[in-house]
C-alpha cells in the first residue's frame, strides 16, 4: 500500500505541476491553451530521447525545459492575435499534429513503439527499493519550486501585468506594454513548467509512447484549475489532490461491488468520475482559493457604491 501511495502521490505532484502551468497561462493570463498536452508530450519526448542517448537525466530535464519553453514561445507568436476559442482550437490542433508527427517519424522518435528504459535522476545513487521514494522526493521538490516561483510571479508586477492582459489587452497596449511580449513570456514560462512536468512523466513511467498523451491531460489540468479556483496556485494544489483522489480512489470500487462484471464496473467508475466533476463544480462554485493581488495598499476601508 505504501508503494502504491508513493506512486500515486508522484502522479498527484506531476498533475499539480501541469495544473500550475495552466493556472499561469489560462488562470492568470487568460490564454486558453488546449494544446497543453502537446507541450507536456514534447517535454517527455525530449527528456526521454536525450537520456536514452546517454545524456545525464538532470541535463536532459533542463534541456527539455529550455526547448519546450522556446517552442511554446514560438507558438505564442503565431497565436497572439487569436481570441479565446480560436486560440484553444489552434493550440489543440498543434498538439494533435505534434502527436501525429511523433507517431510516424520513427527515425527520430521510434514512433508508436515508444522509448523504453528512460533513466531517472540519481538512479545510480539510491538503492532500487527506494527508487520510487526518491523520485517522489524529487518531484515534490519540483512542485515546491514551481509553486514558489509562480507565487512569486503572481505577487509581482509581472503577475499584475499578466492578469491585466487577460482582462483587456488593448488597455495594456495603451499603457505602453507590449501584449505580445507578455504572452511570449507567459508561454515561455508555462512551456518550461510543462517541459518539467513532461520530463517527470518520462522519469516516472520510464517508458513513453504517443498513446500516453491525449487531450485528457489538458482536460485534467483544466479541471484542476477550475475546481481550484482560477488564478489561485494554492487552490490548484488542493484540487489536483482531490482530482487524483477521485480518479484513483474509484479504482477501489471494484473491490466493494464484487458481483458486477469488470467492464460494467469500469464504466460505472468513469460515470461517477464524470458526474462527480459536474457536482464539484456545482457545489463548490468558487473553488478552493482566491486570486492573489500584486499590491495591497495599507488601507482597509472598503466602500463601494
Amino acid at each position, binding site marked *: 500500500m505504501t508503494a502504491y501511495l508513493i506512486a500515486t502521490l508522484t502522479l498527484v505532484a506531476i498533475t499539480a505541476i501541469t495544473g500550475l502551468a495552466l493556472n499561469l497561462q489560462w488562470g492568470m493570463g487568460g490564454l486558453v491553451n488546449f494544446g497543453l498536452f502537446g507541450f507536456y508530450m514534447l517535454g517527455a519526448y525530449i527528456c526521454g530521447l536525450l537520456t536514452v542517448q546517454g545524456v545525464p537525466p538532470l541535463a536532459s530535464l533542463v534541456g527539455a525545459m529550455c526547448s519546450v519553453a522556446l517552442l511554446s514561445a514560438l507558438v505564442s507568436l503565431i497565436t497572439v492575435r487569436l481570441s479565446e476559442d480560436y486560440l484553444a482550437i489552434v493550440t489543440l490542433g498543434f498538439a494533435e499534429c505534434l502527436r501525429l508527427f511523433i507517431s510516424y517519424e520513427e527515425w527520430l522518435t521510434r514512433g508508436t513503439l515508444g522509448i523504453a528504459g528512460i533513466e531517472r535522476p540519481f538512479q545510480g545513487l539510491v538503492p532500487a527499493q527506494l527508487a520510487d521514494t526518491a523520485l517522489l522526493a524529487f518531484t515534490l521538490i519540483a512542485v515546491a519550486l514551481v509553486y514558489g*516561483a509562480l507565487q*512569486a*510571479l503572481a505577487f*509581482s*508586477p*509581472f*503577475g*499584475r*501585468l499578466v*492578469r*491585466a492582459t*487577460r*482582462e*483587456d489587452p*488593448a*488597455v*495594456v*497596449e*495603451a*499603457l*505602453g*506594454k*507590449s*501584449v505580445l511580449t507578455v504572452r511570449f*513570456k507567459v508561454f515561455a*514560462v508555462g512551456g518550461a513548467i510543462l517541459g518539467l512536468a513532461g520530463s517527470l512523466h518520462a522519469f516516472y513511467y520510464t517508458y513513453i509512447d504517443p498513446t500516453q498523451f491525449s487531450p485528457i491531460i489538458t482536460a485534467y489540468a483544466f479541471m484542476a484549475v477550475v475546481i481550484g479556483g482560477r488564478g489561485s496556485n494554492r487552490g490548484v494544489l488542493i484540487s489536483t489532490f482531490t482530482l487524483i483522489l477521485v480518479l484513483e480512489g474509484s479504482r477501489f470500487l471494484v473491490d466493494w461491488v464484487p458481483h458486477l462484471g469488470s467492464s460494467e464496473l469500469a464504466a460505472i467508475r468513469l460515470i461517477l468520475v464524470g458526474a462527480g466533476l459536474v457536482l464539484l463544480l456545482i457545489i463548490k462554485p468558487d473553488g478552493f482559493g482566491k*486570486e492573489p*493581488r*500584486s*499590491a*495591497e*495598499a495599507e*488601507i*482597509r*476601508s*472598503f*466602500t*463601494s*457604491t
Partner: protein
Amino acid sequence: MLEARNVRVVFGGFQALDGASVRLPAGVVTGIIGPNGAGKSTLFGVLAGAVETASGEVLLEGRSVARHGPAWRARHGLTRTFQLSRELAALSVLENVLLARPKAPSEGVFSALFSRSAMRAAEEVAIEKARSLLARVDLWRLANAPAGVLSGGQKKLLELCRALMLDPRIVLLDEPSAGVNPTRIGEITEFIRTLQQEGMSFGMVEHNMDMIRSLCDRVYVLAEGRVLTEGRFDDVVNNPQVASAYLGSQP
C-alpha cells in the same frame, strides 16, 4: 507635437475616417467635437496606434510613427483613455494604476524570481506615486477594491489616473466627463487645467460644451469622417454649419 495627416480608415467597406487631418500642439488642450459616428473615437484610435489606417500619416514630434503600435507610442509619451471605461475589473484600483507605471526591469520574470528586493523598492516608489494620483480624485480610499465595483464616473477618474501614471506628454481623453457626477466635472476640469499648465498636452473628445469651452484653445469639428471646421471655440460654435450638424439649440 502630434499630428494626423489625411487619415483614411475603412471598416469592412464603411469609411470611418475619410481624409481627416488634425494637429495637437504641445502644451494645450485640443478639443474634438462632432456628432455621433463622426469618427472621433476612431481618430483617437489612429493617433494612439490602435486602429490601422488605409492611408495617411501620423507624426509624433515630427516623426512618422505609422509602423509603431500603441505600446510603443505609450512608451514615447502618448497615451489615451477610452470612451467606454475600460477598467481592469478583476484587478484592484491600485493595481490598475500601478500597471501604468513606466516600463521597468522590475516588471519582468527575472526580477520577480531573482531580484525581489529591488523589485519591492521599485514597487514602493510606484505605489507612492499612485497614491498621490488616486488621492487627488478621492479614489485612494477604494485602493484595494476591485475596479469592477466602481461607479461609471469613478471608472472614468481611474482611467485618468492610470493615464497620468505613465508620465505622458500627450494624453488623449475620450469623453472624460461622460457618466461623471456633474459636481465632479468641475474638479476634473481643474485637474486637467493644472496639468496643462505644468506642460502636459491633451486631445479631448467631449460632448460637454462647458468643459470644452473652459479648457480648449482650439477645437476641431468632425463630421462623417472629415474635419468640418476648426478654430477657436467661440468661432466654431457660432458656425451655423456646425450648429445644424451637431450642437442643436444648446448654448
